[in-house]
């Protein structure tokens, strides 16, 4: 269960690449095909989650065929351990998983972003205090805490969202804080301060627009983690009530689908979670790379500079002259 934050090197000053109109996020989606692929994958699943249930051939909880029926014409993805149509479950389940993913990421963005901006901008004691608090949160293994809270408070959709959100905000907070801290030192912010601009104005005019793209990148990555955590919680039986990709995996495991050879009972939900996470990762990573041209030209690589023979030079120059 992945709880360590992604490869975003925390603390790097992310200078938002000046945009040629339109926010860098849009610009990145245009330029980097990996981001576009990510958007397409996530988009597809969101679409399925929204319109899917109305198109589902069967009900997601009433058995509509033999147990572990192999994929066939009228059960495109076969049936699970209790005879329920896997495709319908996938559609309804997808909705829950994505809701948890997006909602928890939103919570993490608001809490993490807020604390990150507050700590980064105010500096001094507030900064140290908030960051120390974040350290403690980061140290606590969030899966176990989720189990404890879900057990003690009882499983419910809002509890799971809240719990996942409240435990994933620490990564967002740390990244946002280091970005805000570096922006605050920028000359144009100091100049605005020396002009007597109010703190509110500086944050709204200079800090937020600069940190927004990074916040979006981190939030997109948090969606991936939230979906992960939801599936882990479901696997431990403390997930959301009702159907989700996580609960489908858990049912398949409970009813030993693997040894029954019924791959269609657990492969679709597993792959779906994997694909959505990959989609989010591609988008988030692309935006973060675009913001952060920190990967300088490597001074060392397998390929080396080339030497041109005199012959090609002369006709090249001839072409230049003519061109």
């Amino acid at each position, binding site marked *: 269960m992945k709880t360590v934050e992604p490869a975003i090197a925390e603390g790097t000053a992310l200078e938002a690449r000046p945009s040629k109109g339109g926010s860098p996020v849009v610009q990145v989606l245009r330029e980097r095909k990996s981001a576009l692929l990510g958007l397409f994958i996530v988009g597809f699943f969101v679409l399925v989650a929204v319109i899917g249930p109305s198109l589902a051939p069967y009900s997601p909880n009433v058995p509509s065929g033999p147990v572990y029926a192999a994929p066939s014409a009228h059960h495109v993805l076969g049936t699970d351990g209790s005879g329920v149509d896997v495709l319908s479950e996938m559609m309804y389940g997808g909705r829950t998983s994505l809701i948890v993913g997006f909602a928890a990421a939103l919570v993490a963005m608001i809490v993490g972003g807020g604390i990150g901006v507050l700590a980064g901008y105010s500096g001094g004691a507030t900064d140290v205090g908030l960051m120390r608090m974040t350290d403690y949160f980061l140290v606590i293994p969030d899966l176990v805490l989720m189990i404890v809270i879900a057990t003690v408070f009882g499983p419910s959709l809002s509890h799971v969202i809240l719990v996942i959100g409240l435990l994933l905000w620490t990564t967002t907070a740390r990244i946002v804080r280091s970005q805000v801290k570096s922006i605050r030192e920028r000359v144009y912010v100091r100049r605005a301060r020396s002009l007597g601009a109010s703190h509110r104005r500086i944050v709204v005019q200079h800090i937020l627009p600069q940190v927004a793209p990074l916040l979006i990148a981190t939030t997109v990555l948090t969606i991936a983690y939230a979906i992960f955590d939801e599936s882990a919680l479901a696997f431990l039986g403390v997930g959301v009530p009702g159907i989700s990709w996580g609960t489908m995996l858990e049912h398949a495991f409970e009813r030993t689908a693997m040894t029954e050879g019924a791959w269609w009972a657990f492969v679709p939900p597993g792959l779906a979670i994997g694909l959505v996470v990959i989609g989010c990762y591609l988008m988030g990573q692309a935006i973060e790379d675009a913001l952060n041209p920190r990967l300088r*030209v*490597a*001074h060392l*690589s397998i*390929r*080396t*500079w*080339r*030497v*041109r023979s*005199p012959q090609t*030079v002369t006709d090249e120059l001839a072409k*230049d*002259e003519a*061109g």
Partner: protein
Amino acid sequence: MSLLAVRDLHVWFDLPHGGRLHAVQGITFEVEVGERLGLVGESGCGKTTALLALMGLLPPSAEVEGEVLIDGIEILRGGEDAMRPHRWTDIAMVFQGAMNALNPVKTVGSQIVEPMEFHGTATGAAAKREAGDLLQLVGIPASAADRYPHEFSGGMRQRAAIAMALACEPKVLLADEPTTALDVMVQAQILQLLVSLTHDLGLAVMLVTHDLPLVTQVCERAVVMYAGRTAESAPVDTLFHDPRHPYTRLLFAATPDLTGDSEVVSIPGAPPRLDRPLVGCPFASRCDRTFDRCRVDTPELVMVAARHQAACHLNDAEHAHEMDAATGGGAS
């Protein structure tokens, strides 16, 4: 036969979004034993690229053409592998950002000993002792060999970098803006050190900088570069008193002098883009002496006097008179 000879050096870079940047467009110069040659020009004129090309320290996106000879042996055309044995033994380098040029997690002494042991000039205790002597030579106590770069001040780090460059007794020392990040007093110390090295060790030094007065005071000869080409090259005295390229003259005029009371005038416009083919003289749009020929064909680097070359049509026979009128040199 000169110690270091560079003949018609070209460097192209493949740009990420397609297109090619012609950063160095054919420069030729020579450096004798113990001579101090300046390579001066503004940012983007190709001086650092040229310097790096001499040691083959270019990224994979680069393509070079031309010849670099040390004591008559060609070292560039063989590519990175053939160049490697010559690095640090024949030709060494000091970089501008000394802060990061030294590995932060290794002691300074070990970084000086490293090339010695690799190239076999000294090993073990002998190498350690040699490193200590080198540090002493550049004005740092030998005991500092066991300390880490972050414990050194800016000036001391640059001295340590020079000591490291001398590890394998190179014939030529290339210095890329060695004192730009330093205060004027520390700069004077470093330059004094470089000059003494050329006298005591017969070391040839190539100093790359954008600071014209630095070149006239420290170097004996200088090459003024503009838009990847040699605009003019001559002994520094001639450069100031008898410039034969308007860019040299205007550059001197734009540089404030401590005691000079001539008016400081900036040069309008900006250098041409090097990813586009060149038409006519690169300086034509900014020059105060432009005439029709300048916008059509590119001036060749021509000998205008002994050891004095310039690439400007004004130096052609029929325009000789006009050039004299313009020559007031910096003192105009």
